[in-house]
């Protein structure tokens, strides 16, 4: 218990936000796509992904490759195959309902009105086809149709299937409490075991019911019968109540509305809880999973050095860090994501012993510091001073044996440099870069850069960093 508390205390506030944010994103996916085929396929893909992780951890190389390939191809297939369903989900909702709204099943289909209307039409021998989609997307099975989006009323159903209405031969599709499409053309069944008195409406109803999980109500124009097609069955219905029950059963509408609301609430709560558990599991497996170690050599940055001082020497240029974390995170750590900064604001002129603590080390999230070598760094600071130094040309190469460098002048003869006081006290001469003699003869002018040694020296502002040499070479007497 104590371990658990210590572990929770070691988590940062960013970690809690990380888990909450991703849990909410997952929960929103559930809310938006629940009941669709996309959701079911996504669950399948998630199971495959877990299977792949297990295969990797067990060292099943080929299996993990195959599953990885299936997951990758599956992701593309989802987008291509279910593009209509995805578009429908996203188009049907505004931004607020995508980010916040909870229920997409709030519209309850008025089954009583539909049953009344259907038997009324049957009584008057007015033919009709009414489709109640299940969980499957019908866009591939149904052709044509006119968007309607009208609230379901007895008068509206009667008018849609009125003989003089241009869309009365097609099917009406019911979505929630609306008729979303009218005049839709359904696929015809080619079964040869159907009674001869079944007309095109019956074959259309069976065709769609056979191909999808939709429920289709047929009102026979000739016989005034009411039939319900579901799966590969077409059954006659004689009672309004029976028809109502069929529709309610198909749509999952509970007789007890309070129980239905409670069930919906529990479903949402369970989904929210599962999202948190799932994301927390992933978070722990990624950030606190297998304890992998890595060693990195990181150069030390020295900050907040007092003005007028400079670093003369340090005991080390870089420190070795041993880092730990989950395999995935540790493998992705690069040296540029890690920094070691030593604050020199309290350092004094002379030798300073500074210890490296976790405060000096910046690490990517989820990575822990195990060891620092060395833990102590010696930094020697010096006062920055300026000094005017004579320049000496570093001649190199070889003159012809009969020639002699008689004289040369250079400008400037001295150059001002800046550097540590202790260093500059020991330096009496600045040397130029090597100036080759090989191709020189007679009179001439050349320039040479100044070589600063040690490299901590700097040319003082306003001073030149090179000299101009005017030489005179003559024949030996």
């Amino acid at each position, binding site marked *: 218990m104590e371990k658990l508390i210590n572990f929770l205390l070691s988590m940062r506030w960013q970690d809690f936000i990380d888990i909450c944010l991703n849990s909410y994103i997952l929960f929103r996916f559930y809310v938006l796509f629940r009941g669709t085929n996309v959701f079911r396929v996504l669950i399948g893909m998630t199971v495959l992904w877990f299977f792949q992780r297990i295969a990797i951890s067990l060292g099943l190389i080929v299996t993990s490759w195959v599953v990885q390939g299936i997951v990758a191809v599956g992701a593309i297939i989802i987008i291509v195959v279910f593009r209509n369903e995805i578009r429908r989900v996203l188009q049907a909702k505004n931004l607020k309902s995508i980010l916040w709204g909870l229920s997409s099943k709030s519209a309850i289909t008025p089954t009583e009105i539909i049953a009344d209307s259907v038997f009324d039409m049957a009584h008057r021998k007015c033919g009709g086809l009414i489709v109640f989609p299940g969980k499957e997307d019908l866009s591939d099975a149904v052709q044509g149709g006119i968007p309607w989006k009208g609230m379901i009323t007895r008068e509206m159903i009667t008018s849609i299937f009125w003989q003089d209405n241009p869309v009365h031969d097609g099917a009406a599709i019911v979505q929630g409490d609306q008729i979303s499409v009218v005049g839709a053309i359904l696929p015809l069944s080619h079964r040869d075991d159907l009674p001869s008195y079944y007309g095109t409406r019956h074959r259309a109803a069976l065709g769609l019911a056979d191909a999808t999980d939709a429920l289709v109500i047929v009102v026979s124009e000739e016989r005034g019968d009411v039939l319900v097609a579901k799966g590969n069955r077409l059954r006659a219905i004689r009672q309004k109540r029976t028809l109502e029950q069929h529709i309610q059963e198909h749509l999952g509408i509970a007789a007890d509305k309070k129980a239905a609301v409670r069930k919906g609430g529990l479903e949402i709560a369970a989904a929210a809880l599962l999202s948190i558990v799932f994301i927390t599991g992933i978070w722990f497996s990624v950030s606190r999973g297998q304890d992998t170690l890595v060693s990195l050599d990181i150069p030390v940055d020295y900050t907040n050095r007092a003005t007028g001082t400079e670093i003369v020497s340090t005991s080390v240029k870089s420190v070795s860090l041993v880092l730990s974390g989950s395999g995935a995170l540790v493998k992705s750590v690069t040296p540029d994501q890690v920094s070691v900064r030593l604050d020199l604001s309290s350092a004094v002129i002379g030798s300073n012993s500074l210890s490296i603590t976790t405060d000096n080390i910046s690490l990517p999230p989820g990575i822990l510091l195990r060891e620092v070598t060395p833990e102590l760094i010696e930094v020697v600071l010096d006062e920055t001073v300026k000094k005017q130094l004579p320049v000496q040309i*570093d001649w190199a*190469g*070889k*003159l012809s044996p009969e020639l002699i460098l008689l*004289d040369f002048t250079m400008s400037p003869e001295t150059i001002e440099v800046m550097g540590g006081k202790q260093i500059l006290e020991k330096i009496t001469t600045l*040397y130029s870069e090597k100036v080759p003699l090989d191709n020189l003869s007679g009179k001439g002018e050349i320039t040479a850069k100044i070589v600063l040694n040690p490299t901590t020296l700097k040319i003082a502002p306003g001073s030149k960093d090179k000299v101009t040499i005017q030489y005179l070479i003559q024949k030996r007497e």
Partner: protein
Amino acid sequence: MCEEVVDNTPSNPTMVFSAGKEKAVCFSLFDPVPQKTVIYHNWYHRDIPSARIQLTLNPPRWSTHSSIQLRKTDIGPWRVEITNEKGKVLGVLRFSVTD
């Protein structure tokens, strides 16, 4: 700086000596010399002391010289600081030893 001193006169004055030559000579002339004085020719190869040669000056006017033998390892910039007994720098001569 010269390659040699002949009859108390510098011969072949130069700023660059080939390591193939025998020696480099630092010739110094003091005028006037009020009293017998000791001076030093301090030879430095890239700021590292290489030789310290004591010389005596006599009134009223005196020239004197010191030299070093040149070897392949002597390649690089050199200077000769001429100082008095107390270490005061009286003059600096610079030259290079090349291939």
